[in-house]
């Protein structure tokens, strides 16, 4: 049991299964018709196959792989959004997921109202958000636009606000899924700087990106997922090198 406490994230032989029934059955008529035709087939699609990996506290892991390799699915498992079909996932610590910036934003509400709403979605009390309100708006640089409905924001402004709210608290585990591709260069630099700051404070990081350079820059370990299977995991430079080799060969 001492082992469990050392690991921030412990994924043991996790498998995630989807049903790729050829026609989506979402109404009663289809269901009964298929039932009678004995066509309620289960076309199995395994998004993750027997993945096991352990992340110690304070480590920064990069997840790399081609599109559709199961990286986002693995992140969703860690966040608790999905449950594994087989295997077990244990997480020790609070999670700040950045799977999409502004999850929970309602376009009709103003930025001020959305800060409280988004904070509540992430599990923070109103008092907490009030205390950190200035900090959030400072990072996002949105002082002039606080009382405007979010639907009128540019995508960059919304992204800045989302990132700012999500990183205002120091979580134990930060999970970032390709969100930095949105936003201009200045924004990306700011986010990288904030993430580095959090890493120095001992936050555990899971980072998914197609930008191998940023993975090398932020992480000290990496895992390569290919079609749901764990191909390689270990030191970030070794894994990235191997991955890039394959990409070059395939071209």
């Amino acid at each position, binding site marked *: 049991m001492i082992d469990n406490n050392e690991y921030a994230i412990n994924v043991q032989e996790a498998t995630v299964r989807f049903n790729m029934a050829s026609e989506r059955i979402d*109404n009663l008529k289809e269901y009964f018709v298929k039932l009678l035709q004995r066509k309620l087939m289960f076309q199995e699609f395994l998004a993750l196959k027997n993945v096991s990996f352990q992340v110690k506290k304070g480590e920064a892991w990069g997840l790399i792989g081609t599109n559709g390799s199961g990286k986002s699915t693995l992140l969703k498992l860690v966040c608790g959004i999905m449950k594994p079909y087989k295997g077990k996932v244990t997480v020790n610590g609070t999670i700040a997921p950045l799977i999409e910036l502004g999850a929970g934003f309602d376009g*009709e509400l103003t930025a001020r109202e959305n800060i409280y709403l988004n904070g509540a979605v992430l599990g923070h009390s109103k008092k907490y958000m009030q205390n950190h309100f200035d900090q959030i708006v400072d990072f996002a640089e949105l002082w002039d636009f606080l009382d405007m409905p979010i639907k009128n924001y540019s995508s960059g402004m919304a992204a800045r606000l989302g990132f700012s709210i999500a990183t205002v608290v120091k979580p134990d585990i930060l999970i970032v899924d390709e969100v930095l591709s949105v936003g201009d260069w200045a924004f990306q630099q700011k986010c990288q700087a904030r993430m580095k700051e959090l890493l120095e404070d001992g936050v555990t990081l899971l980072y998914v990106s197609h930008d191998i350079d940023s993975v090398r820059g932020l992480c000290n370990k990496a895992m390569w997922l290919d079609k749901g299977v764990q191909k390689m995991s270990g030191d970030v430079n070794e894994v990235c090198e191997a991955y890039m080799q394959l990409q070059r060969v395939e071209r």
Partner: protein
Amino acid sequence: MNSLVSRIINCYRYKDLIFQLVQKDVKLKYRRSFLGYVWSILNPLLIMLVMVIVFTNMFRFEIPFYPVYLLIGQTCFNFLSESTNQAMFSIIGNASLLKKTYVPKYIFTISKISSSLVNMLFAMGALVLVCFICNVKLSWSMLFIPVVVLEIYTFCMGVGLFLAQATVYFRDVQHIYGAFLTAWMYLTPIFYPAESLPKILLRLIKYLNPMYSYVTQFRTIVLNGCLPEPKLIVYGISVAIGVLLFGTWSFYKNQDNFILYI
């Protein structure tokens, strides 16, 4: 039992989110409309007015304080209808959020039903106004009204939870429920006196229609100035709790698979 306790604790932890979501619904309901919150009171009043004119001139029911009689039935049934319809879409409507962050799924259903409760409370303001105009006497038994409201709230929560999870799997539930709700409305004595029904139908309604119990309890308190029959209260409370347990059970059984169907 252990997991039930831990779930209730979890629910409490997210009370801020429930409050935020309810606040959002209430704020957005009348934003950008000219009259704003006045509609919460005006709307039920206008509908009641139309119904009073229609039913006192077209069908003659000899019910004393007919506007109040009608408005009580209307308010309660509107709450049922609005809250369950909103709850039905609470999971699929928040699909994008559920796919991106971990939020306990029942939070959305609870928040929709609670928003409808807030609307009902506003509508009860209209009720107070009408009672005043019709010279209905105040009585101590009116202190029991919150209990009746709580009974209806619990009942709607159970129905809402069941509908929310059913709609995730079968989208036609929304259409079936629409027809069901219409039938339910006619089978509840909202605008006609219960006595005008054939005896057999009346007995069936008394046993099988919980809304009959709630509406009658409410009416007895306001119009007769006394507490309703204990039989009615016991029936109301036990059905509310039973339906809540059933709804919660069906929700929990299926909630892990929602993500695959939304």
